[in-house]
């Protein structure tokens, strides 16, 4: 069987399994969560609890009283139609809410990923070449210190720094929200520039705390590769150091980092729950926190599924490209495929 076909099937199976896991979790949760939600609403009004309960249950994607199989089937068919249910917190359909929120999270994530990998690959390679020099030692030290700072601590420190500094920085990098007020969304210079400025601090929280470890592992990989025989042979052949650095060392040192790229995508999507809460950045993570806080099951499961689908797609794309990067990993029928 074609490897690409096999891998596609595997990705689809993963999607199905994850959605099923989400259903099982949602199925186990509703009883208590619906009760909880009814309590919350009834506390603040004089509406009959039964009416509230009915209205909540009618908006769940499946009847909690129905049999497991029946609930599962209605849930799956609704999902296939792109229906994620109705969110009480957002006051609109979950799919509408998330379709609007996802691009913002992706903006921060792509900024963070690009910045992080650009900095760490360049730094790591230079550090490996000058192993033991003051540049290497100083950068290793700085890398260790910044890596030791959790992303949320960096977020607090950045807000503190911006807040306690002069007004220009505060205006340049606003620590709250995702877009400048009074500017209409659209592909205008003002809007794009404003959105970018708002994304800088959240992205910086990831970059500052993430580049260090990546640069150090790039350094380690490069040092390992520098010890390989083929590099020595290349040197003896008198190849230019530029060619050796890019084709012989760089390419082989980057390969192990490819898996960290995957992990960092999942990590960023997961930790957006905390970071977007700190920055009041209305992306996927923000809505997940709001959903959990208000025990809004459809929104909770909707964000859960959307984040998961993003990670599955990213993994799939990376897998497809990995064998192109590393011909040693054979793809084919031998079952040795990555």
């Amino acid at each position, binding site marked *: 069987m074609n490897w690409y076909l096999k891998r596609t099937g595997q990705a689809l199976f993963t999607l199905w399994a994850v959605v099923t896991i989400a259903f099982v979790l949602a199925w*186990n949760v509703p009883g208590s969560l619906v009760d909880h939600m009814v309590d919350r609403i009834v506390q603040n009004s004089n509406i009959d609890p039964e009416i509230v309960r009915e209205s909540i249950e009618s908006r769940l994607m499946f009847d909690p009283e129905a049999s497991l199989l029946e609930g599962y089937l209605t849930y799956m068919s609704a999902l296939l139609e792109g229906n994620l249910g109705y969110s009480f917190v957002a006051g609109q359909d979950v799919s509408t809410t998330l379709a609007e929120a996802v691009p913002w999270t992706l903006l921060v994530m792509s900024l963070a990923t690009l910045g992080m990998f650009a900095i760490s690959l360049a730094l790591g390679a230079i550090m490996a070449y000058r192993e033991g020099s003051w540049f290497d030692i100083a950068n290793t030290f700085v890398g260790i210190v910044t*890596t*030791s700072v959790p992303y949320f601590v960096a977020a*607090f420190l950045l807000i*503190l720094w911006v807040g306690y500094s002069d007004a220009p920085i505060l205006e340049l990098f606003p620590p709250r929200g995702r877009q400048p007020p009074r500017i209409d969304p659209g592909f205008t210079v003002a809007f794009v520039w404003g959105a970018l400025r708002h994304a800088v601090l959240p992205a910086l929280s990831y970059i500052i705390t993430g580049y260090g470890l990546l640069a150090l592992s790039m350094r*380690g990989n490069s*040092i390992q590769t520098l010890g390989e025989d083929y590099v020595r042979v290349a040197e003896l052949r008198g190849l230019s150091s530029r060619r050796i650095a890019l084709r012989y060392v760089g390419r082989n040192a980057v390969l192990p980092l490819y898996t960290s790229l995957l992990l960092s995508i999942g990590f960023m999507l997961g930790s957006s*729950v905390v970071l977007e809460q700190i920055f009041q950045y209305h992306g996927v993570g923000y809505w997940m926190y709001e959903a959990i806080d208000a025990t809004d099951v459809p929104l909770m499961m909707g964000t859960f599924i959307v984040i998961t689908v993003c990670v599955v797609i990213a993994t799939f794309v990376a897998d497809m490209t990995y064998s192109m990067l590393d011909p040693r990993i054979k793809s084919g029928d031998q*079952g040795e495929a990555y």
Partner: protein
Amino acid sequence: MKRTEDDRAGDDDPRTDGGTGDMFGDSEITAVTRRQRARETFDESVVAPFKVAWDDWRTKVALLILGGFVATALLVWLHQAGYTLLNDVLRVLGSPWELEVPRSPVGITDERRSVRPFENWQYPLGTFDNGVDILSALLWATPGMLQMVLAGGVFSTAMATVVGTVSGYKGGTVESVLNTIVDIAMSIPGLPLVVVLVAIIQPSSPYVIGVLITINIWAGLARTIHSQVLSLREKSYVEASRTMGISTPQIIRKDILPNLMPYITVNFVYAARRVVYDSIALYYLGLLGGGMAENWGVMLDWAYNLYNALTVSGKAYMLLAPMVPIVALSMALILLSQGTDRLFNPRVRTRHAGETVQEDDTDCEVNPPA
């Protein structure tokens, strides 16, 4: 020629017998040297590596910081058990500060609220608006954190190593099945999954929380190890071992695992760090814990959300205080992985050894040191 387990073990170290002693499987020599060999093995695998690792300043700093956390945890445990050893010593020394349970004191006086740090030595690091002594709260959270880290680190590393090695080396159906499981586990974003599980299970034991947080972290580590094993099994010395008919567990133990040690140690630290980060995040979001400063994350939550430490000027100390142990613990874990990297990483070790003994380089390539 009958080869026993002991003979093979003896073959590892050509220096003990000059490469000839066990060739003929002399059982008498084996019996005589068994105890001696056990001692040598202990020296080689425990004492010598520790000495090498201790040589690195990073390991020294890491172990000192971790030792400090363990000592703190022990003191707090003693205190929780009713032995107020720390306070007795402090009283004898004439210090006004004493460790207290960081529960919001009922009917506290106004002068206990929002004390700035280094003003009143009865509360060295100051207090929150609710009168909780910050230094006490910081220390009190240590044992729980260490329990979570231990549980999570051991669970995820063991899981990842077993799954990753087996799937990478075995191949075939085993690999497909394990890879699918790893794929699924990895595709579920950790923090959101843990959040839902925490809501259902509502764990209170730090060990359970630690395992819950790492419930899918191991998948990422398994994946890394898997891809490493894939390229390792193509190496010439592994192929040589296979051709020589050495059993699979033996090859995995002797040829594969030593090369994975840097990943395994780094991954243990990585998992431990995730436990530190995620548990603090969960406590910060208010999803764990019950109204008491039992974690540094709760202190961050109080400072940021309850007492507006970021916007009210002069309250930043509430936010900065819990950051110190968080960063210190995280830094110790990273330094540990960096310091032991040279010890476990055969390539880096070869390179450094190669500076003195050039000829050994090629030997190490064929048969890397265990």
